[in-house]
């Protein structure tokens, strides 16, 4: 009972819930870069919202079901085919033994999620099956997939009912993003205040991964570029290295750092970081922490009916 990786593409890996409570040991959070799209995919195959699924970066990628299986594709928009026939994202797809599922290159966004109705059998490590690609553990042997990998599949629920994500809930991804940010611990070093982040269109550079994203634009002026005493950073933190071009910490970013932390993408918007591909543009909109808290509650309320128990980390 297996799924064979015919084409792994740029980077495909097993991702589920993040590692929790281990940042004091310098273990990054990791997990799905876009946890909302992971939940939407799992919902369509009757699995827990944070069950292990396949995260595909930019595409293309191809898989073969070695037995009958229900699957679902969500996240960045792309062509989906079964044995060369068009298939739809955001709905339950039933594969027969031997069927080949192809994921095309994404048209926008960055990451596609492929959920399976059967459990992918890799050992749970420190509470999750997520792959920490940088640290080299978790998931499938601590690494991204290679062509020819065979994933062992475990127990399968009864026939997954055919579901479709309600159209009004299907996220839309374009090439431009709006991310809301709160001030960081060293935002007082910004010569122009938070406006320095807000009044610009930032572009994601090719130096981007699950660990972090280098942004391009006009360099930021700091009153002091002196390094800080090493302290915590979290996903969504925007650091200002000496070159003045922001570095946005991704889900798998390191847990501490020494560069000034000039802002942070709010928790409610962090899942969108996983959809930022090289050349995507973004606007950063400053909000206060209490507004950010309110926005999160509203977003969770929006999803409560379709994705009960959704956690946005």
């Amino acid at each position, binding site marked *: 009972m297996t799924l064979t990786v015919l084409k792994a593409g740029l980077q495909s890996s097993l991702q589920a819930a993040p590692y929790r409570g281990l940042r004091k040991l310098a273990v990054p959070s990791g997990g799905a870069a876009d946890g909302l799209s992971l939940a939407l995919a799992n919902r369509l195959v009757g699995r827990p919202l944070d069950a292990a699924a396949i995260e595909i970066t930019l595409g293309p990628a191809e898989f073969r079901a070695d037995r009958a299986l229900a699957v679902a594709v969500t996240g960045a928009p792309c062509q989906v085919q079964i044995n060369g026939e068009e298939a739809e994202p955001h709905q339950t797809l039933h594969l027969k033994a031997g069927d080949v599922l192809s994921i095309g290159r994404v048209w926008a966004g960055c990451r596609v999620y492929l959920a399976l109705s059967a459990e992918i059998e890799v050992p749970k490590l420190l509470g999750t099956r997520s792959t920490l690609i940088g640290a080299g553990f978790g998931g499938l042997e601590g690494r991204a997939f290679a062509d020819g990998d065979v994933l062992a599949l475990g127990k399968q629920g009864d026939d997954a009912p055919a579901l479709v994500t309600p159209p009004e809930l299907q996220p839309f991804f374009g090439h431009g993003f709006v991310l809301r940010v709160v001030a960081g611990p060293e935002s007082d070093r910004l010569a122009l205040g938070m406006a320095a982040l807000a009044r610009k269109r930032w572009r994601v550079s090719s130096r981007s991964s699950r660990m972090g994203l280098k942004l391009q634009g006009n360099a930021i002026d700091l009153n002091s570029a002196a390094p800080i005493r*090493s*302290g915590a950073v979290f996903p969504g933190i925007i650091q200002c290295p000496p070159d003045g071009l922001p570095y946005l910490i991704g889900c798998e970013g390191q847990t501490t750092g020494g560069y000034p932390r000039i802002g942070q993408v709010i928790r409610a918007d962090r899942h969108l970081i996983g959809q930022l591909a090289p050349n995507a543009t973004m606007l950063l909109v400053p909000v206060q922490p209490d507004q950010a808290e309110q926005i999160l509650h509203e977003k969770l309320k929006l999803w409560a009916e379709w994705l009960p128990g959704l956690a946005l980390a």
Partner: protein
Amino acid sequence: MSQSIYCADDWLMIQGLPAERVAALAAAAEGGGWDDIVPGLDSLSLSWDPAQRSLEAAHAAAEALAGSDADAAPATTIAPATLHICYEAPWAHDADIVAELLGLSTDALPGWHAAQDWRVAMLGFQPGFAYLTCDARIPDIPRLADPRARVEAGSVGLLGQICGLYPHAGPGGWPIIGRIAETLFDPQASSPALLQAGQAVRFERIDAAELARRTGGAA
């Protein structure tokens, strides 16, 4: 230093703390309902899930923690660690330059390093990587101009005023003075990191043959 609290929407940081206060507050924060408790060199960061706890409640809890006289030295509750270190070639790549910066002969460097009372200030950079500090006056040791393409797991470096322990092999920019026999991080273990913040660390010298024996000869 005076402490102050920075607050985002799901984490906050008590900053401006002396090192021993970081460890004491980190110990006092355990069991306080925080998702993550992250010691820094002069700060303690605490995160929470806004679906479980309000910003206001988190801030109030942090203020109470910062204002408490949680001085009970947590180091006394964590057993000190003894690490077996080899200061010999080929593991002490940069002993010459580090000794010179410290005003020591290369031969005297191991004795100096092993004699210090080291303490884990924090973990960071990569899983299990420990930052150790001591009371000795250490000049600001610079990063290697040309980072090494590969340092071995267990390599011991000195950078700034910090002694850093590499848990994994990989590229590294810290000047290296030796290598320890112990495994610092094992994700398969129920307690994956050998060291934790606040813990006292003692170095015990071993020779290259003993290091090879203890590491199974792994290079």
